[in-house]
């Protein structure tokens, strides 16, 4: 099998990155200093990984990253444990940044449009062309996505020197939230939320686990808040929105409020809390005017449920209310955020769990409102704008088509794109100056005011692509134009920025400060960081309308357009098979788009899953298959962003639809933000059907003890049965009569090896028994573990047709079962997640049936799979009750697909493959290995050191990336290990063990619910 790395490339990369601390580039680049985390670069040894810390550039959250490089190429990214945002975790998007780095559709080099075609051009020429245009242009626009503080400085000064206007464009802008903060507390910021300190959370639609603000930090905080702790306390989470997002699915209670009534409900809750006192200051009158009874009818939930939720906010101690997310941004969404801020204030959360003084994203983070984009579009449309530069943004895709951006952009005489790969905006550009991927470039990022991370390149630029960092281009163009600052490279610029910052911090030894910053990946400055202080509500003269807005159009179906759980807005990251093939955490559908519809609505329309519907609004129409979802109100249908690309590359183009084609380009009056949730939609079934690539076989458990729960009350009483080992007395009796000796049904994970097993070295005293425990009370179903595993273990993607057939190859299957979801009234939500992976059973059914011993048990308790030995009878998969064995139906790892649309790994995507793990071929069974290569690595490493394998030495990829810290792994024979303590927890159970007597090594801890659960089947 061709591993895709040419010898020449290999030598180039090894040679380049091995050259000591300074890494010599192959072109005109200066020597740059890279700081590996632990191993000095002189010691680069083939096969031994070097780790660099950097910061993830996938979204504005700015999570710290560790980058694993082998022989000079990046093979894995993980969260940086030192980083307070990620604390070692990483989301699917973060993991998939590797496929952005090795994206085979990246531009090969700078290009210029000549005669309608893009032609290659050299960097020197390209920069001259750009300088020439800049000199001639008297005004131009520079549209840029989110940039770190130092790049922002550079862009600002560049635009200032050359007479350009900057448009900071973020498709998922938090304008209404900022504006509300400004109105209520006089600060134009995104407040800092501390979910971990709260005891009760109400979210009015904010999808904080999955893309809103800082999902990893919030996931960790949420897990701390909502999972039962040592003291037996469990925080309550109420979700009030028309649709259950992934975050909503994790709620304890759902208030399925009518579209646009968030402000009314929030005010009604404030009304309940304030109880006639003047706690709400200048807004008291408004609060008093919204009693739950007044609001109930309009919001479609009972006054009682509003009261109950409001009471939880104060009764349970510090609480937290979060506003609507992007999907809830309607015409009055600033007022909604104001109402939420008032509610937080009245509940006494401001200064405790909500912090306005040192906000999220730091001061340098800013984004221009959609309003200014609209002005720019107006300017461009006149044809008077000679030049537009676009960096890190794809407005031609992400803006509603009715905004007229494409037409206006077309009127611009010279369009420059810094995009590193083709996208809808770059496709229109006249000059393309491909930027580097963030793993190849310098930068910095600020995730909170006063808190910084440094982004350092983890490898030499991928040699297939002649790219240049946008900072370097700007500096050299400025030099060309004679307005340069004298800096040779962006790296120098960055250091200068930091030298001056360090000076203000009073740092004496800058080199040490810099080195430490690079090594740990985190820099805290004190001067910009304010500790929180109490705030008071301010009066405002802005006209706040708290009532629900009028929705455009006929009928009673409201169209909700929400950021995809996988892609976010999807404008820059859609060309990644890992993300495309990751089953959406909510719908469990991969690759294509779907429209969510309530079962009753679907029934009345005669619609079934996969029926193609025509959706039409006043602004556009499109066809999309239906997916029936009980977690959405009857009067709402929902579509995810991120689909419908036309120019984003081979893996993205043609998948699904772009819902932005259906919504108007309307500005929210107060904040100037783009309104997302404002139109009604007409639905017409067509005769077509589309087979959606869903991984969900069934949405219900059918009375099987797959994910049993325990109620909080029961758990507090401590009376839960260890249901796993219960029952079956009669069975044993029968077996006794039958005269054969059954395998011990009491076998716990640590009881390995089983009595009577006589194979090889089993049963040595000092042999560990590896086991895992997954806390389902913590697991949020975010599916980051799925992508982390895919990245770590070279798990191939298979393509839409194959997923639709049921051939997805994920080693972890994030199962989702509905127990209680009711969109018609407020009530408990019970949707259960269960990451299903190989259970490494002590009594594994797959092992005896394999005719060639391709699967067997290792002495340390792993259910091993030997790919080389596998003949492919698939008996093991048939006999696995958990269905965690996946088969290579084709060779999905070649550079060329076996057939159109099948999984393959084209050059240079194959540079990502982990050399520690075999790449599999057609006809071979595979499954979770408990990251056996990591175990062996740790054992080998410690054998060279002290020979003692500490608990923290062995970490599996899924465990490593879990922000909720739901996964624990270790040697269960060691009575002091965390895993052995946790697996003895009274919530611990093993899936299907009592039916199949498989005696899994994976224990799950039952989810804890507030409501009593009636029957669990067993």
């Amino acid at each position, binding site marked *: 099998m061709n591993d895709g790395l040419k010898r020449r490339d290999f030598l180039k990369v090894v040679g380049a990155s091995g050259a000591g601390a300074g890494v010599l580039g192959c072109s005109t680049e200066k020597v740059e200093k890279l700081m590996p985390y632990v191993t000095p670069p002189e010691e680069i040894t083939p096969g031994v990984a070097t780790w660099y810390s950097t910061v993830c550039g996938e979204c504005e959250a700015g999570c710290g990253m560790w980058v694993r490089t082998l022989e000079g190429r990046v093979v894995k990214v993980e969260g940086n444990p030192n980083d307070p945002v990620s604390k070692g975790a990483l989301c699917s998007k973060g993991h998939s940044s590797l496929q952005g780095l090795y994206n085979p559709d990246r531009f090969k080099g700078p290009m210029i449009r000549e005669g309608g075609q893009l032609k290659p051009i050299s960097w020197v020429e390209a920069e001259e062309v750009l300088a020439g245009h800049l000199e001639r242009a008297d005004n131009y626009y520079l549209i840029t996505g989110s940039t770190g503080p130092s790049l922002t400085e550079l862009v600002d000064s560049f635009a200032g020197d050359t007479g350009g206007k900057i448009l900071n464009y973020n498709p998922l802008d938090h304008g209404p939230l900022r504006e509300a903060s400004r109105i209520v507390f006089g600060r134009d910021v995104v407040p800092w939320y501390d979910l971990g300190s709260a005891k009760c959370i109400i979210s009015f639609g904010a999808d904080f686990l999955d893309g809103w603000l800082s999902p990893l930090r919030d996931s960790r905080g949420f897990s701390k808040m909502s999972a039962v702790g040592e003291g037996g306390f469990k925080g309550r989470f109420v979700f009030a929105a028309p649709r259950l997002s992934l975050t909503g699915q994790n709620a304890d209670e759902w208030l399925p409020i009518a579209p646009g009534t968030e402000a009314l409900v929030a005010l009604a809750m404030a009304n309940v809390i304030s109880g006639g006192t003047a706690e709400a200051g200048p807004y008291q009158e408004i609060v008093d005017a919204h009693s739950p009874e007044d609001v109930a009818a309009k919001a479609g939930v009972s006054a009682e449920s509003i009261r109950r939720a409001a009471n939880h906010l104060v009764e349970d101690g510090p609480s937290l209310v979060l506003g609507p997310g992007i999907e809830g941004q309607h015409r009055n969404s600033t007022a909604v955020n104001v109402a939420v801020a008032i509610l937080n204030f009245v509940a006494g959360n401001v200064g405790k769990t909500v912090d306005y003084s040192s906000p999220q994203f730091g001061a340098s983070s800013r984004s221009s409102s959609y309003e200014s984009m609209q002005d720019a579009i107006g300017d461009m449309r006149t044809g008077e704008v000679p030049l537009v530069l676009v960096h890190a943004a794809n407005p031609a895709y992400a803006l509603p088509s009715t905004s007229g951006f494409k037409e206006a952009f077309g009127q611009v005489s010279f369009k420059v794109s810094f995009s590193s790969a083709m996208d809808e905006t770059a496709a229109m550009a006249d000059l393309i100056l491909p930027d580097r991927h963030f793993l190849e470039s310098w930068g910095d990022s600020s995730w909170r005011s006063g808190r910084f991370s440094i982004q350092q390149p983890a490898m030499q630029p991928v040699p297939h692509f002649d790219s240049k960092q946008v900072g370097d281009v700007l500096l050299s163009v400025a030099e060309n134009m004679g307005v340069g600052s004298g800096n040779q490279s962006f790296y120098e610029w960055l250091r200068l920025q930091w030298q001056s910052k360090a000076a203000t911090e009073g740092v004496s030894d800058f080199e040490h400060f810099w080195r430490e910053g690079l090594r740990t990946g985190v820099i805290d400055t004190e001067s910009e960081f304010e500790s929180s202080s109490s705030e008071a509500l301010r009066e405002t003269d802005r006209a706040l309308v708290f009532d629900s807005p009028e929705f455009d159009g006929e009928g009673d179906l409201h169209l909700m357009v929400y950021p995809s759980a996988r892609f976010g807005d999807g404008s820059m990251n859609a060309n990644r098979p890992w993300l495309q093939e990751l089953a959406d955490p909510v719908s469990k559908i991969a690759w294509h788009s779907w429209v969510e519809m309530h079962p009753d609505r679907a029934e009345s329309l005669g619609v079934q899953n996969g029926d193609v519907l025509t959706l039409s609004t006043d602004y556009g129409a499109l066809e999309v298959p239906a997916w029936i979802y009980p977690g959405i109100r009857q009067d709402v249908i929902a579509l995810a962003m991120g689909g419908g690309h036309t120019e984003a590359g081979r893996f993205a183009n043609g998948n699904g639809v772009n819902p932005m084609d259906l919504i108007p380009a309307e500005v929210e009056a107060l904040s100037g933000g783009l309104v997302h949730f404002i139109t009604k939609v007409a639905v017409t079934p067509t005769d077509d059907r589309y087979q959606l690539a869903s991984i*969900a076989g069934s949405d219900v458990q059918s009375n*099987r003890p797959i994910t049993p729960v325990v109620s909080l009350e029961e758990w507090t009483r401590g009376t839960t049965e260890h249901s796993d080992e219960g029952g079956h007395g009669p069975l044993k009796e029968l077996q006794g009569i039958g005269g054969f000796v059954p395998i011990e049904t009491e076998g716990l994970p640590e009881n390995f090896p089983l009595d009577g097993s006589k194979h090889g070295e089993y049963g040595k005293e000092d042999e560990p028994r590896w086991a895992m425990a997954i806390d389902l009370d913590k697991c949020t179903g975010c599916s980051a573990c799925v992508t982390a595993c895919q990245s770590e273990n070279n798990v191939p993607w298979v393509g839409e047709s194959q997923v639709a057939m049921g051939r997805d190859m994920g080693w972890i299957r994030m199962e989702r079962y509905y127990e209680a979801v009711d969109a018609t009234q407020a009530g408990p939500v019970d949707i259960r997640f269960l990451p299903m992976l190989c259970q490494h059973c002590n009594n594994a059914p797959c092992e005896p049936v*394999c*005719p060639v*011993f391709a699967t067997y048990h290792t002495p340390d308790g792993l259910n091993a799979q030997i790919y080389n030995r596998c003949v*492919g*009878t698939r008996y093991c998969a048939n006999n696995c*009750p958990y*269905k965690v064995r996946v088969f290579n139906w084709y060779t999905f790892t070649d550079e060329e697909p076996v057939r159109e649309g099948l999984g393959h790994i084209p050059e240079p995507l194959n540079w990502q493959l982990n050399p520690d793990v075999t790449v599999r071929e057609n006809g071979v069974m595979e499954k979770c290995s408990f990251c056996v290569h990591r175990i062996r690595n740790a054992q080998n490493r410690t054998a060279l050191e002290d020979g003692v394998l500490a608990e923290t030495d062995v970490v599996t990829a899924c465990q490593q990336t879990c922000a909720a810290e739901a996964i624990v792994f270790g040697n269960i024979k060691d009575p002091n290990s965390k895993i052995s303590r946790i697996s003895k927890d009274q919530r611990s159970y093993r899936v299907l063990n009592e*039916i199949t007597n498989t005696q899994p090594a994976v224990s799950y801890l039952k989810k804890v619910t507030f409501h009593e659960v009636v029957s669990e089947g067993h």
Partner: protein
Amino acid sequence: MENDAVNASRGSLAHPDIKTMAEVNVDVLKPLSKPGKGWWMLLGLCVLGIALLFWSWGIQMVQGIGVTGLTSPVGWGVYITTFVFWVGIAHSGTLISAVLFLFRAPWRQSIYRVAEAMTVFAVMTAGLFPLIHVGRVWHAYWLIPYPNSRFLWPNFRSPLVWDVFAVTTYFTVSAVFFYLGTIPDLAAARDAARGFRKKFYSVICLGWRGTDREWHHLSKAYIFLAALATPLVLSVHSVVSWDFAVGIVPGWHATIFAPYFVAGAIFSGVAMVITLSVLVRKAFGLEAYLTIKHYDAMAKLCLVTSMIVLYAYLSEFFMAWYSGEEVERAAFWQRLFGGYWWATWIMLVCNGFVPIMLWFKRVRHSIAALFTISIFVNIGMWFERYVIIVTSLHHEYEPFAWGMYRPSMVEMGIMVGSFGWFGFWFLLFTRLLPPVAIAELKEVLPRPMKPVADSSFVGTGSPPGGVSNG
């Protein structure tokens, strides 16, 4: 008078229309002469089938096993279904030739050659399917225990390894048994043939001369092999059933499987014998040899095994309900009313209900009716295996992993092609080997009143004294 007594003692199984032993030779060896147009057309069809089989298999080997409709959770489908189908077909051959031989059931004599040939070819066909089925056929030999430098053995706990032994043993024994029984008839064919064919028969009849000594050895060997083959009738399909019963898949994991499968195998095998023998009888005008009495006997065997099979079906449903086990109950509920309900109902109707008609003598005595019923049974038995394999796998323990399986064109091509492969060998058989056992048939004929002058007719093809001691 003595002959009348013999005839009487052999009851209704004598062939009243056959006059002399010479006539037997003429009639039975007639098909071995120049084949007609119909035969060539059929052979052409079968060759097309083989081409389809290997072309489809080629596609699968080049592209990957993914060209099938198999998926997770249904990892076994049409291939294993067809494998079990052909193994099942094979069984009645051995039953008729070996078991009925040992039990001295004389009605077997007219049909056992066809049945044995069917056995050998059916096993040859079945044997292809495990190879077609595996993901990496080029490593399939790893299932065979052979000495190797790494001391790697197959896993003797795996029923798939037992399968390898069962099927290869079965093929070996049934092929040898088949060949051994044919030797005297081959000699008869040699005596009747000329030219190249004479040379061919001379070689493969191993120089049979029909001496007492040869007859003695042959009948000794024959009875030993019959004794050896008899347990295989039970064991081979029991082993095949353990492929399923050893698994913990609900719908597979049942102790009833071995007898259930053996009965099913005999059922399907007898039905296939009826199908094929009706065709052979018609094509070669062997009505005098394959009489209504034979069909009546086979129909009764069919009826008995059909009842056993129906009982097994019902007991499976009953046990699923009676166990109270949610997973088991759901699996059988799915079987009747789930996504594959049609397959289950085809199975129940074809195997359980259609054969009820065999209770009626009129049906048993109508060749057309029997032929039709046998086709139903063949279809039904294929679907029985499909139901057991596919419906059980598609709805197992883990609800989130449930899924459907739809066979692909490649699988159907290979399945259809396998009939071509089988038919090809069977057609060759009808032209190259005597389709009815001449020697044994003569045993039940009235002995000639005096030695026939032209010894070549009786000669090598008749056991001494006309009565075999075997």
